[in-house]
């Protein structure tokens, strides 16, 4: 079942996702490359609408019916987007599983949670006896810190945190090689959020499986992930080791995301929460040039002609910004320089 050993567990290659809507084409994901190795936790950060959940949905080919996907989603070297239905169903959950955002609605309200955890086990290991399935459910529930007795409960009898634990137990049910966590803690309060993240990351580390973790919270990703990809308006604007991206962001947008979370022990940050003014662009009407330019504190003339490409800036660090390393802060002074650097973003 393993692909070539050199191939990463999951590789997205030039992924584009476009939704056909009544108001025109909505380009949610525009040329994303991303890789997850076994045993690695990769974070995808970005604000609502940047295309990160759309991206997650394509990994198991679960995108909405009005979406057109191009590019490649290679899972263990095989393209999920073009494989046959039978193969796809085998990859789903047994190869890669998803911890959905908002577990409040991701569990079926009319089935007992035990049945819901058992469903993929029975589906992907046919012939497994009832007793073994029950033992497996009890084991999984215990691992996520739930009383195995709770298998008989219905989702409405559980709290939000318990439901999310059930989702995690379910995601691990078939021993997948990859777990996709799509904002796994969105609807939870901070304490429960921390517990759930601990459980999730501990189990993933313990099993050595790969995980793609999607969140708008860069600080959470910085804690849990090995590498972080920052997305803005459907494109990757920065990619690098988690700690570095958070502590020393290259792209102004990563900088804004990082600054949005006050650091403990930094009194200045408490009194000056660094928000980012404005909204992300309407993906139906993207601005020309760098799509972040309208909100960028460092935007200049040079940003307008073309969308910047990802380029390498340091060992293992990539960003898509033409102003990196440019010492000048005032856009006005830059006008003269524009022509000199035009067309040479790196």
């Amino acid at each position, binding site marked *: 079942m393993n692909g070539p050993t050199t191939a990463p567990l999951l590789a997205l290659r030039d992924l584009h996702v476009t939704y056909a809507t009544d108001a025109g084409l909505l380009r949610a994901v525009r040329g994303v490359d991303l890789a997850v190795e076994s045993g690695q936790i990769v974070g995808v950060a970005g604000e609502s609408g940047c295309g990160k959940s759309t991206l997650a949905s394509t990994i*198991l080919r*679960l995108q909405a019916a009005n979406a057109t996907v191009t590019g490649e989603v290679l899972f263990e070297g095989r393209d999920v987007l073009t494989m046959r239905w039978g193969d*796809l*169903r*085998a*990859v*789903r*959950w*047994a190869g890669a*599983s*998803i911890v*959905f955002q*908002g577990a*409040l*609605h*991701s*569990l*079926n*309200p*009319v*089935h*007992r949670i035990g049945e819901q955890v058992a*469903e*993929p086990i029975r*589906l*992907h290991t046919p012939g497994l006896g009832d007793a073994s399935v029950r033992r497996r459910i009890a084991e999984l529930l215990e691992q996520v810190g*739930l*009383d195995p*007795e*709770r298998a*008989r*409960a*219905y989702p*409405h*009898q*559980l*709290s*939000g*945190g*318990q439901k999310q634990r059930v989702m995690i137990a*379910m995601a691990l049910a078939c021993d997948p090689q990859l777990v996709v966590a799509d904002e796994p803690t969105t*609807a*939870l*309060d901070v304490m*429960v959020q921390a*517990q759930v993240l601990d459980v999730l990351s501990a189990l993933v580390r313990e099993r050595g499986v790969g995980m793609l973790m999607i969140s708008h919270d860069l600080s959470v990703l910085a804690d849990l992930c090995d590498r972080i990809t920052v997305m803005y308006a459907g494109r990757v604007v920065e990619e690098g080791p988690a700690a570095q991206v958070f502590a020393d962001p290259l792209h102004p947008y990563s900088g804004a995301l990082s600054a949005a979370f006050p650091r403990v022990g930094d009194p200045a940050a408490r009194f000056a929460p660094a928000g980012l003014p404005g909204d992300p662009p309407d993906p139906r009407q993207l601005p020309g040039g760098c799509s972040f330019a309208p909100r960028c504190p460092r935007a200049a003339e040079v940003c307008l002609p073309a969308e910047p490409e990802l380029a390498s800036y340091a060992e293992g660090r990539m960003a898509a910004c033409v102003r990196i390393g440019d010492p000048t802060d005032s856009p006005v002074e830059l006008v003269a320089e524009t022509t000199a650097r035009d067309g040479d973003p790196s």
Partner: protein
Amino acid sequence: MSLVAEPGLVAEDERSASQPRRRGYAAYVGLKVLGAIGSLCFMLVVNFLLFRVLPGDPAKTLGRGRLTSQAQVDAFNKTYGLNEPLPQQFLTFLKNIAHGDLGISLQYRLPVSQLIMDRLWTTLLLVGTSTILATVIGVYLGIRGAWNRGGLFDRISTGASLTLYSMPEWWLGLLLIAGLGVGFGFVPGLFPTGLLHSQNVDPNSLHGVFDTVWHLVLPVTTLTLAYLADYSLIMRSSLLDELGEDYLQTARAKGLRDVQVRNHHAVRNALLPTTTIIALNIGFVVSGAITVETVFSIPGLGLLATDAIGVPDFWVLQGTFLVASAGVILANLAANLLYGWLDPRVRT
């Protein structure tokens, strides 16, 4: 539609773990049965009062304007207990019902209970068969239409459902009689109309059973078509409501086949609102049976009641109303029990 508030998100994580709530189905059933008994009592009171407060004096009405002496009126009222005070009449009414005595028909001179029992099975057969057929076909059409929304099947079935939905059942019945019963031009009539047996056929023989089925085709088709439209539109819209739900995405992600996602996850949830509507509708199906039995001259409860209105045969009317209302209450009870079984959220 959530009938019970979700436990708060901020609820302490371990609360429900230590205290499993297992009041369960038995308590739910008990509560619903008690409710149904309450409805039955209320219905008895209404049923009694309705026929006492109706304008017009039964004795005079039955006299049809002919001169009746006071002595005759008094004798009539005494025979039927109408001279007693209302509370006394009510007690007698309850006592009689407890003994299965619904009075004597003025028209047939037979006990009303016997008249009703003779015709009850006919109506049950008609209403029961049509309800089952309408439910099964309607729910199937609704599921297929919603699952491939906007497809050819969906457009045809929704169009047909809307057309049928807007047709009164008596008119639909007349069309079917004209088209398939009487025949037109060179086309002979295919199905019999009127009564449930041909003459000279023993209804208890095998041949008689087929003969009855043959007679039921047109009336059952009428009622089925009239109500399946309703059910298919409701099932379609409740399933469409479920389609965007997150748990379906979970089910797909698990690697289930499309059919499994639909039947095991989506339909089970979409059936909840449909169950309620079908149960509420049984009352209307009973009223539909009255018109259809009249149109097709089928000797059921509906025709009995219709004929009784003309006389007017008060005790027959009172008896048929009683049976019909009790039937609706029982059907609602059954639906409630089914609902509790389908949706765990209403039990706790």
